């Protein structure tokens, strides 16, 4: 947990004026710039990549295996990110996230990033495999 013995404590050299320990939440605070939801906006281009790929491979995607991968990753990452945020391994900028948090974790992590990441990777892998197999067909 952050070593915040008072109200605030400065941290990394580079972010000396930006990152502060929060004794109430046992987390670090970082706020820089005007608010806009970068975490959501930066995912949008990937939705346009994954949709056509998913349409192409949806019949060969094993839904149960995909769901199990996502649920396992969600479960592990909830604990892992809670741990990492508490120790300042990385610190979210409050001006770039939606603002709501679950267990100290920005809500877009469990509701978007934890499932979209595995889904994107699995979709790309299956699309590439389909392309490889199609190329080999006489």
């Amino acid at each position, binding site marked *: 947990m952050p*070593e915040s013995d008072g109200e605030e404590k400065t941290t990394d050299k580079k*972010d000396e004026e930006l990152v502060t320990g929060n004794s109430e939440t046992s987390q670090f605070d970082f706020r820089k710039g005007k608010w806009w939801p970068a975490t959501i906006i930066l995912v949008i281009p990937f939705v346009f990549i994954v949709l056509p790929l998913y349409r192409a491979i949806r019949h*060969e995607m094993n839904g149960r295996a995909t769901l199990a991968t996502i649920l396992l990753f969600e479960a592990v990452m909830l604990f892992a990110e809670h741990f990492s945020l508490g120790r300042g*391994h*990385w*610190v979210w900028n409050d001006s*770039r996230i939606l603002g709501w948090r679950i267990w100290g974790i920005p809500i877009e992590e469990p509701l978007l990033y934890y499932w979209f990441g595995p889904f994107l*990777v*699995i979709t790309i892998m299956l699309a590439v495999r389909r392309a490889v197999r199609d190329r*080999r067909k006489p």
Partner: protein
Amino acid sequence: MPLYFITYIILFWIPVFILAGFLWKGMDEATRKAFWITVAIMSGLTFAMEYVYIWLDVWTFTQSVDPLIGIRIWGVPIEEFEFWFGASPLFMLLYLAFDRCWPNSVKKESTHA
């Protein structure tokens, strides 16, 4: 102790090597090739996206509790790439492991060799 580095070695990289050890021999050539191509695509993509997120100040790092191991690539701690480069193979291998446990009944071509 560099706990950021250690945590994701344990959570991502060790399972990747264990799963790969179990699954690799049974994978057909197309799946193996798709695995490596996807690793390459995702490594490039996540490498670039890391700098986009940093450039836009979406997150930062502190060392007030746990030190970083000290290697940085253009200012970004190597732990970030350890995280991203470990996540993609883990997703694929987990999927392939679950796919082997519960084969897709409508799938026409098998994953296995």
